[in-house]
């Protein structure tokens, strides 16, 4: 089994499904070699054109998301009801949607929902985008499971891994359908869906890294010192897995954005009038055929560009860090 996390450009999920036994070494080795210091990250960025382009795209979206309120005079909910479904114009640079809402405002507030804030309900908004939350929660759960089963081994490992195998075997789309049809449309549920889908992959990755790291000298040393297993897992091992995990997380965020779009498109994303990109496409789709493709075009492009950006960034960093070796 080749180390698929290394060669996979798109969401790693479907790929690293199997055979950790065979796939661990490359990734773990990478962990060692990846310094992950700020200075070096910057130099990696600058030395790889791919990474730089990716970084610019991602930075653009993060920028508009963070500064959205300053980048438009409209709110994403204001309805200019005399001008629905209009193309780009001086007043509305990207045009308006079916209720006369400014598409640029909706687009950048949509980026906010993805990257900067998570609307738990109409009154509670958490910092950190919905996609980010999905990935972070998946990381926490996945890393925990991976660490424990990798370090402890034995039956814990066996049971955890077989269960995760089973989860991974379920086609992702099926999980989404069942989960969200079962629990309905809201940001929290989207996070849950992204988490459940992400956990097995992350757990596998962390487990394989753990298996490798636990044979190292310094772990032996810690064990001889009599450190507790939890200390070793979370203080000694976990920090050393961050390199591959960061790259994996970048791809995963891209994937989560893709997933949010898909859920929104299927009508099980965030409740209206949230400027959720997927829901915008789903609604705008009806109007394409009436000759107003704008409402569906922009969010589609937004999803695509952001995911492309994240992929380029992850790719570039990986390539460069390989070169460092």
């Amino acid at each position: 089994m080749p180390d698929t996390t290394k060669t996979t450009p798109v969401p790693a999920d479907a790929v690293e499904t199997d055979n950790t036994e065979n796939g661990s070494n490359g990734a773990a080795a990478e962990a060692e070699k990846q310094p992950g210091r700020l200075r070096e990250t910057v130099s990696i960025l600058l030395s790889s054109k791919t990474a730089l382009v990716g970084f610019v795209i991602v930075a653009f979206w993060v920028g508009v998301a963070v500064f959205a309120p300053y980048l438009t005079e409209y709110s994403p909910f204001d309805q200019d009801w005399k001008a629905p479904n209009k193309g780009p114009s001086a007043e509305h640079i990207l045009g308006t949607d079916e209720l006369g809402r400014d598409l640029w405002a909706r687009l950048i507030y949509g980026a906010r929902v993805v990257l900067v804030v998570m609307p738990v309900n109409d009154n509670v908004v958490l910092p950190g985008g919905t996609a980010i939350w999905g990935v972070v929660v998946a990381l926490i759960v996945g890393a925990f499971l991976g660490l424990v089963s990798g370090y402890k081994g034995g039956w814990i490992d066996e049971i955890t891994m077989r269960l995760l195998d089973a989860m991974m075997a379920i086609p992702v789309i099926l999980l989404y359908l069942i989960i969200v049809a079962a629990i309905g449309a809201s940001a929290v549920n989207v996070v849950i869906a992204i988490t459940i889908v992400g956990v097995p992959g992350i757990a596998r990755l962390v487990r394989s890294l753990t298996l490798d790291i636990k044979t190292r000298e310094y772990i032996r040393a810690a064990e001889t010192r009599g450190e507790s297993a939890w200390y070793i897992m979370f203080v000694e091992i976990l920090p050393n897995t961050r390199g591959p995990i960061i790259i994996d997380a970048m791809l995963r965020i891209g994937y989560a954005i893709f997933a949010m779009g898909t859920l929104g498109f299927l009508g099980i994303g965030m409740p209206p009038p949230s400027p959720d990109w997927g829901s915008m496409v789903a609604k705008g789709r009806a109007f394409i055929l009436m000759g107003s493709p704008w409402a569906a075009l922009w969010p589609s492009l937004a999803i695509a560009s952001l995911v492309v950006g994240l992929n380029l960034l992850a790719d570039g960093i990986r390539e460069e860090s390989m070169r460092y070796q």
Partner: protein
Amino acid sequence: MTRKMHPAVKDLKSDMEKGKLSRREFIRMSTLLGVSAFTATQMAGLGWVKKAFAGNIKRGGTMRVATSLQKIAHPANYSWIAGSNVTRQVAEYLTLTDGKNITHPYLLENWEASDDLKTWTFNLRKGVTFNNGDAFVADDVIFCMNQWLDDKVGSSMKGMIGGYLDTTGIEKVNDHQIKLHLKIPEIAVPEHMFHYPAQILNHRTFEGDFLKAPHGTGPYTMEEYREGEMAIIKARSDYWGKGADGKPLPYLDGMKFIDMGTETAPMIAAMKSGDIDFIDMSDIAGTDIFMALKDDPKAQILTAPTASARVLRMRADMKPFDNEKVRLAIKKCQNHEKILALAQMGQGLEGQDFHVYQLHPEYCEFKTPAYDPQGAKKLLAEAGYPNGIEVNLAVGSGWPDVVRYAEILKQDAIAGGVKINIQTMPNSQYWEKWDQVDFGITPWTHRPLGTMVLNLAYKGDENGKPVAWNETKWVDEEFSALLEKANGTLDVEKRRKIFCDLQRIQYERGTVGIGYWRAVWMVAGANVKGLDGHPNGYMLFNEVSFS
């Protein structure tokens, strides 16, 4: 006319002559009382436009219809019009209410109502046979009526006619005549016989599943019905109705219903590419289909204004909607003009927050309530909510226009101190709790008379408990009494007077906001001839042909 004319027809005629009743309404009402459409038209002073023999009617061809093929078993159990539209071609109704709201006899030769409107005599058409060869007789009608009224069957017909008819009130006079003895006077009996679950079945062969014995009197036979996929019907050669060329109807060889789900984009694309000839829009909102195809030369669109509405309903027995000031405040948050323009793309009429439609005969002139957020705020303060209220609005996501209605309302209500959180769910989940949620938007279908919906949804039973379809649990004594009075008032002018009060009460104290009345459409390929638009989306296709 050999039969005695119902005495009320004279009053109606005099109403019409005095200008109190439109000609169209006169025809509608007098046909309900058993006058033939021809006579009524004559009395109204209008020329009877006989469908001229069109020598160029071409026979043949198979019509391909995009629809959604749900499970069907017992026609009396239909809860979707689309299902009835397939079997409608195979089994038929006693009467037919056409696109102009005029009810004609169909499997009936004619009907007569007693002066007190409590005894109705149905004379059955003779010489009609089911497609398995059995003759159509009174037993079939009695059997079906028993089915409708059977609690075990669970037909929505029970709600419609159960209030005035018991199984004991059905009397068989002979093979071709039955008499209905009603508990209370009712004028709309013939219209009810055209309600979509009221298809006449063969009492000899029907055993609960129409598909197992698809025996009806209609012009087509059921060849195949595969739920979720497609259905095929073929013309029979011995149908009782004759076409303009003197030969039995229908003109088409057959029809093929193709399940395309409820996604409208594929239907639009298929119509544009000529892969389908007709879109059954009876159960889908379809504004996007209309907008996408209205200027397309490949498609023709018939528009019918209807009393079908999206009803913003508030439970009168739940906080904060138990306070009528709160309800009125929420109604004031609606900008009807905007809602109609954006939610329904301007295709219909503005609603006025009571469930009576501008084209209902008894409608009393009323000014569309203005958008008044300040007024709403004041009312909320008076009701004890000086800081406004926050409410959850349940919405079925399968109706895009309903979602738009909700989004507009949410935005406009902010200024009125009402914070609305929209909760979307699949339509099927909405129907599960449509009468249980405190605040939601429920689609109500077209009904030709103003009293019909009011009786169904806005009154109590004998004990003062809300009736079955009273989704908002609103029972207002004065309103109920007035409604009772209106039910027994045949004179339209007098009824309208009562309706002025009914409308005002429902606006001020009632539990519903009505954003707009929907126009509905029939969308067909440009080569389809003889279509008749229908406010319920019923497919009346006997005389449809291809050019």
